[in-house]
């Protein structure tokens, strides 16, 4: 019983530490841009029967810290990418200024839709904790 007690204490301390970090540490990203690229040779791979998925059907952004969608077509042919057609070598940079859920008709996805969810910038401890919980949930599901 005493051994269990001594094991539970460090575990509890670790959980409290993680929750405190999740609530207090500011949400930061290396860049405000969420970048997706169509690599060279994608069209050839698709023609060969590979199912190449580049853009997820749901993208998560956060105002103020990570709120720009950046798409690049590095392939040699035009590609339907996200909401639009992109020429070889072309990029598309879409900034967001309002937290909301944005739906785009997108033929590249089986559902025919691409959704971009823009969350408000988490500024309070509770918002940061919620934001990180949702991010963790999105990562594991």
């Amino acid at each position, binding site marked *: 019983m005493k051994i269990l007690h001594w094991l539970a204490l460090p575990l509890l301390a670790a959980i409290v530490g993680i929750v405190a970090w999740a609530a207090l540490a500011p949400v930061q990203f290396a860049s405000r841009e969420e970048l997706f690229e169509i690599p060279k040779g994608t069209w050839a791979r698709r023609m060969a029967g590979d199912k190449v998925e580049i853009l997820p059907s749901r993208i998560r952004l956060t105002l103020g810290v990570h709120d720009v*969608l950046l798409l690049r077509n590095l392939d040699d042919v035009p590609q*339907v990418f996200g*909401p*639009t*057609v*992109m*020429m070889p*070598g*072309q*990029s*598309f*940079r*879409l*900034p967001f*200024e*309002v937290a*909301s859920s*944005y739906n*785009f*008709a*997108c*033929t590249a996805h089986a559902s*025919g839709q691409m959704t971009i969810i823009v969350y408000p910038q988490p500024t309070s401890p509770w918002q940061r904790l919620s934001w990180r919980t949702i991010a963790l949930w999105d990562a594991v599901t």
Partner: protein
Amino acid sequence: MTMRERLNRIVLLLVLLIGSATAHAEDASALKAGVFEPPREAPDFALPGSNGSELKLSAYRGKVVLLGFGFTSCAAVCPITLGTLKQVNKKLGAQASELQVIYITVDPEHDDAARLKKYLSSFDPNFIGGTGSEAQLAAVRKDFGIAAEKVAGPDGSYTHSSFIYLIDRQGRLRALMPFGHVADDYVHDVRILLTAP
């Protein structure tokens, strides 16, 4: 001209070149809409227009064009978008004469030129609509990456791309404004495109 004067001229030229390149980059990144870089020439099309004439995109070179796709029975997206574009024209004042709104139907079965004219005029008489055969319109949608699909059911509704393309005076596809932006965002971007080189 002395060597010093020549050097001064070269330095001035370089400063002007760098300045103009930077200004262009700033213009593009300052848009509220999503920006294409480098911009490509907008695919041209020729369709029966709601004004009774041929609607050719290239005929609007010299103006900024806002190009959208929808249908007259649309209950959700199109009335909001067209209502916003009506406000844009109003807010632009005299500059509105340098802007053309073009709306192309995804429902040629119901939207002939007369119906498009009546519908668009209810928002703004200067808006021009485009219709055509299913094959003609499908080709235009493909060129612009527009998705449109008829929804199964008796009401003949469609799901369709809801954004608006911004085309500059040179006929280049510069940007894409997602659904939901307010009139002021369009006005902001149109003014930048009107003043851009």
